């Protein structure tokens, strides 16, 4: 069965196929009602960004869980790896002088 594609589109709008015969993978981020940050909701397979948006709506937002949806081709996400955990995240904890806890906050100043 020949698969001669007639349509057009670049990688950013169509996404690279994960494997032969598979549609591209997209990560879905949804914003809950009431605002707040978009949180990762899961992933969908879709041929391009418009269908990814619709799939995300059908799979993750049909019951009012979201007021806004972002979809990103999975390959566009750069993520830290488990090996990075040491060099990236460890050093902070055992060095008290890195944290500003010796500074007395003046009254009236908000601290987050």
């Amino acid at each position, binding site marked *: *069965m*020949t*698969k*001669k*594609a*007639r*349509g057009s589109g670049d990688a950013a709008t169509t996404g690279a196929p994960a494997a032969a015969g598979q*549609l591209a993978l997209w990560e879905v981020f949804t914003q809950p009602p009431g605002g707040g940050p978009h949180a990762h909701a899961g992933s*969908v*397979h*879709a*041929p*391009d960004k*418009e*269908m990814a948006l*619709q*799939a995300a709506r*059908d*799979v993750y937002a*049909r019951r009012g869980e979201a007021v806004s949806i972002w979809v990103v081709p999975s390959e566009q996400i750069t993520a830290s790896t488990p090996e990075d955990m040491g060099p990236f995240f460890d050093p902070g904890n055992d060095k008290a002088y890195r944290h500003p806890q010796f500074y007395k906050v003046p009254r009236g100043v908000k601290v987050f």
Partner: protein
Amino acid sequence: MLGHRLSEWCGHGPILEEDIALTNIALDLVGEANLVLQRAGRVEGKGRDQDALAFLRTDREYRNAMMVELPNGDFGYTIVRQFLFSAYAMHQWEALSSSKDADLAGIAAKALKESRYHVRHSAEWVVRLGDGTDESHGRAQDALDDLWRYTGELFITDEVEQSLVTQKLAVDPASLMAPWRRDVADVVARATLRLPPDGYMQRGGRAGLHTEHLGIMLAEMQVVSRAFPGARW
């Protein structure tokens, strides 16, 4: 009836996302039918509610267009049929939103939102199938060619509808043809498909004369209700 046909895709969709999308559309359509039949039962005033109208009418008493009772076929057939139907429904709901019947206008306003999504979803798929591979293009074109003869029926006006139109309660189906054809021609062109020529148009659904498929669908749909009258769960 279209909701019932789409529900047959449950668990059989080509990909998970489409399985969910088609069954979501089915739920939307059944929900719209629920409200419309409820209203119809009240207007009729003979004590029939939406369940009585859905599950106890015979095929000769059903007035749906024949297009919606046709078997689903392959995904291309289903989605082309969905587009042709939803484009029609969207314009119909939009017109009915200004009906003098406040209940009907309310139902129409709600259904219009759902319908717009159905059109968007099915149209985008028609474009991707048409402007896709040779195989998807061929299947989409076959579907369009086969379904075209069932589209004429959507725009026929009978006397009942004409009198409702005069009272500003309903919309004249014939008036929906022009905007529908524009929408369909636009999407068919984007999909690199060919609009079929207007030939013989099937008709009869509105008069209760249906294809051989409706009887079988109703048998499945109504069997539980008829076997256990008045059942509650």
